[in-house]
């Protein structure tokens, strides 16, 4: 039996119960006790699903624990300052918040698409989804989710500032939904709406 066969079989092994999501979050933020950490690792290394998650979370270790290498003094000072900032961000993510004057992200969140309808509580399924036009936008993308966050529709290349519900490709039954619109000037996204909820009453 070669190593590939051993690895393949082990990676497809799934062991329940898996660690709770909260345990992963605490692992990522370095909050687990040594015993909890050991239990998590011992499970994850014998469970293919959790091993994939572990590798992902381990990548955050680069943030928490910068590699030390020799550098000329001035480079070292700069790296130390940068490492301190990075470490602080990892420990206190709120410190990573950009200053108020620098809150535009990738030039994409500088404007908001104003949602017109649907929103709130509705007696019947909406006929249209409408929003305010965004200058320079050449198309829009509409994303619709269930209230549980399950993606239901992702319609691209909408030329107008509205979309008929029957173009969504999903039947809107009574229930709660969340949607948003992104204004595009491909390949750039110019603006995005806030997430807006609406409910179709039974």
């Amino acid at each position, binding site marked *: 039996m070669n190593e590939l066969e051993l*690895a393949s079989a*082990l*990676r497809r*092994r799934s062991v329940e119960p898996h660690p709770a*999501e909260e345990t992963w*979050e605490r692992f990522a933020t370095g909050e687990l006790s040594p015993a909890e950490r050991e239990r998590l690792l011992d499970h994850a290394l014998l469970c293919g699903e959790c091993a994939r998650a572990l*590798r*992902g979370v*381990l990548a955050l270790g680069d943030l928490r624990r910068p590699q030390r290498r020799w550098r000329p003094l001035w480079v070292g000072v700069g790296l130390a300052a940068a490492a301190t900032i990075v470490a602080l961000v990892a420990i206190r993510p709120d410190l*990573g918040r950009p200053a108020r004057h620098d809150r535009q992200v990738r030039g994409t969140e500088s404007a908001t698409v104003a949602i017109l309808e649907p929103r709130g509580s509705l007696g019947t399924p909406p006929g249209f989804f409408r929003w305010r036009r965004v200058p320079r936008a050449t198309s829009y993308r509409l994303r619709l989710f269930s209230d549980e966050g399950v993606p239901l529709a992702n319609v691209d290349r909408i030329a107008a500032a509205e979309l008929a519900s029957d173009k969504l490709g999903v039947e809107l039954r009574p229930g709660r939904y969340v949607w948003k619109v992104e204004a595009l000037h491909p390949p750039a996204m110019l603006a995005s709406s806030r997430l807006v909820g609406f409910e179709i009453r039974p």
Partner: protein
Amino acid sequence: MDAIENRFDELVRSSARLVRAAILRVGGRAARHVEDLEQRVYLALWRRFQAEGGPPQEIAAAYVYRSAVREAVRELRSLPPEEPLAEGLDPASPAVDPERQAAGRELGERIAAALARLAPDRRRAVAAHLQGFEVAEIQRLFDWDYQRARNLIARGLQELRQQLAPEVQDE
């Protein structure tokens, strides 16, 4: 409601870089779906804002960070393993003989049982190696130096093969 929505918008704006960085770092292959993951993080936040009026300001960014980690972990756990399984052993393949599917699952259990008989450090090193961790990652996980990690992997693999040898010969 407007106050809540404004707080939510503010949180999304102020956290966008952090969310994306966390997803990209944690997500690995899942980061290919980074936009979907971002949406899921924001939806989770939005639901919390709707239900509770949002987390207290002082923990808001930490909550966003944890949400990003949670969604990336969920996505990673749902992905199939990267490598194709040795022929005939993939339990998910409809074309595979059920007996061989069972054999694939059973092999995984036998490997786990054999690993359990190794000394703890060897077990961890070999299991991590077989799960696809690089030596540098194994070093970081257990705070070992390079030589120790390599030795534990090499000796552990050798011992694992010995443990499995009689069973394999029976096949």
